[in-house]
């Protein structure tokens, strides 16, 4: 007992030096598990790193105390209100410990905890630890058991409002939309909203592709999407997200009408003087596809494609000089035609 008291004292004096005042308040009322009479029947198990530990984390006293008791109850497999409380504290200290999450789920199911309450708990954890894998995975487990997605789109929308590119949130949202497929009907509205808030949010563009891909194929819909994308490109022609999305639309079906629309759109932009690197790259792709599909080879088109590569390598996109030089040489090799313009710096190749 003496030893335990000493530990508490030294922690409170440490904390006055190093922690913020709110943490101090929390700590000063905090009782270590080793000092809680109701836990005296549990044998804590110290971390066994072996005699010569490496990468040893300088745990706070609180962390060590909680995890010593956690190991103690994990060893006996106790499932009770008090272990649930201990697990809650342990996860707050380290939400990345999968073992503790698994244990929590076992306890929750054993105690028949109201899973809607548990969902609230994990919502709060996600708000605090958006980038953690385990919190999202745990949420998925709970929602699977509940078989009730009614709060999920709203919840992920809230997280995406805090962090519009949160990888976990988007991934989770896609899982919900796949598992409960009727929900996808309204997803496009959500995507529209996010793209209108930040036209450069690539995660929202990716979600747009996801939605289109998961709805029944409808060529009219794709044509409408094409127009939507053109409109967005006109607003911000140097936005890689919308150009990539455009490329994604062309993957849907081998549709000459779509390709022609894209070709017309790009040619007009280019002729109007736009020199967005993504526009030029798209023109090169279109020319390449065009040349491939016609016989005899249109030499003027090949030369134009080579000129565009050279412009990118030397003028508009010099960081990708070696890439564009390669694309240039690839076109030359495929059609056995040399470009007129020898400005390309071949030092890198």
């Amino acid at each position, binding site marked *: 007992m003496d030893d335990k008291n000493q530990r508490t004292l030294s922690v409170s004096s440490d904390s006055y030096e190093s922690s913020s005042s709110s943490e101090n308040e929390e700590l000063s009322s905090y009782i270590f598990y080793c000092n809680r009479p109701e836990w005296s029947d549990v044998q804590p198990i110290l971390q*066994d790193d072996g005699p010569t530990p490496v990468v040893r984390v300088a745990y706070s006293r609180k962390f060590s105390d909680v995890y010593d008791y956690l190991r103690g109850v994990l060893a006996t497999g106790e499932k009770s209100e008090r272990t649930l409380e201990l697990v809650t504290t342990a996860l707050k200290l380290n939400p990345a410990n999968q073992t503790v999450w698994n244990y929590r789920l076992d306890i929750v199911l054993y105690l028949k905890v109201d899973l809607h309450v548990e969902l609230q708990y994990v919502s709060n954890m996600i708000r605090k630890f958006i980038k953690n894998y385990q919190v999202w995975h745990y949420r998925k487990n709970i929602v699977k058991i509940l078989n009730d997605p009614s709060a999920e789109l709203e919840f992920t929308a809230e997280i995406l409002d805090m962090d519009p590119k949160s990888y976990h949130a988007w991934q989770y949202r896609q899982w919900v939309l796949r598992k409960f497929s009727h929900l996808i009907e309204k997803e496009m509205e959500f995507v529209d909203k996010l793209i209108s808030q930040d036209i450069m949010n690539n995660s929202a563009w990716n979600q747009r592709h996801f939605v289109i891909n998961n709805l029944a194929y409808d060529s009219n819909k794709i044509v409408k999407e094409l127009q939507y994308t053109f409109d967005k490109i006109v607003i911000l022609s140097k936005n890689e997200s919308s150009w990539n999305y455009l490329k994604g639309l062309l993957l849907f079906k081998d549709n000459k009408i779509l390709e022609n629309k894209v070709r017309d759109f790009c040619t007009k932009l280019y002729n109007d003087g736009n020199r967005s690197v993504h526009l030029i790259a798209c023109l090169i792709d279109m020319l390449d596809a065009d040349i491939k599909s016609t016989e005899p080879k249109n030499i003027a088109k090949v030369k134009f494609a080579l000129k565009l590569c050279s412009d990118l390598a030397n003028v508009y996109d*010099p960081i990708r000089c070696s890439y564009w030089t390669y694309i240039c040489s690839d076109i030359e090799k495929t059609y056995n035609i040399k470009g007129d313009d020898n400005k390309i710096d071949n030092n890198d*190749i």
Partner: protein
Amino acid sequence: MNKYLEIPRFKLDNESIETNTSISQIQVEKKIEQIFKSFCSNAECDPEIPVLHREDHINYIKKHMFTLPENYECLDSSRPWLCYWLCQSFALLNCELTTEEKSDVVSFLIKCQHESGGFCGGPNTIPHLAPTYAAICALCLIGTEEAYSVINRENLYKFLMSLRLPNGSFKMHVYGESDVRAVYCAATVARLTNIYTDTLFEGSARWVIRCQTYEGGFGGLPGVEAHGGYTFCGFSALLLLQSVHMCDTKSLLRWVANKQMPFEGGFQGRTNKLVDGCYSFWQAAVFPVISGLLESEEKRPIGSLYDYRALQEYVLICCQYKYYGGLIDKPGKPPDVYHTCYVLSGLSLAQHAIKNSSCVVGTPENILNENNPIYNIEVTSLDKALNYFRAATQINY
């Protein structure tokens, strides 16, 4: 500025459209522009720079090898990762642990090995594919007989089999999520320790290729956004599964080439995100492999398809923590062992971007040991480990 930073650098042109993305991008560019400017004025009088602060980084790694500060509590269940990141960084810097230290790391990893054959994030936790990958890579980097013999290959095989799903994907742990990392981790450890079988990976490549997105990179799962880390895992997994022909390499190459930032020189992880030093590895690792594939396909020399000089400049000028060593995400961020490993791993790839030719930016002493872009293990350690396990007896499947 161009005198030292070898190519013209272009900043974002937001075409007068202000969004959260463009605002944060412009802030980063401003900060980096200042750093580049002050670098250029220093370079007027010191032609040696940029210099890799080797000693500082070695000290940083040594210090963290044994004790980590309290803020690493959140990585308490990733301790084999900490071992791997530190061992890989150390090997790239051409340093070796003492025999005793090697033994210490090995003894600790034994504590993390589960009887089921997998490794855990720390003692007394459940086995998990990610720490299994990290622990095995760390043991290969240590490279002693003692280290290799820790791995129970027969149980490891059973462990991998237990995580396999019918569609060929893998779960990270028994109740776990499955994503493209899991296939990469499983394929890597199976290849490293020579326990690979077609049965173990039946259908895996077909699953992985579903993660290649319309953008060209790979997402963590089918449908999810293309991302540098998952792209590395997906593409490397296809190579390890000898199924790289399934990949749309042209589209991947376009996407990954576009992830190099035209001003900063480093890589972003996803389209329209900010530069981060760790993608110096995750993204850049794809290039030497693609070049190799194209060379054998087209039967002509291809060379490097990204700007390895600009990448080295970003790392050396912007990603070294100036106060006490360690490497960082971007200026203003603190160092950590994760970034130290992946920034150095990427720097090594960029320095060895062209075979038998020096591509080292700054003083020649900046050179790191060569890295393998598929395993992310320093090459001499990797070759030694592969040879060791190649000669090992066949396990009973």
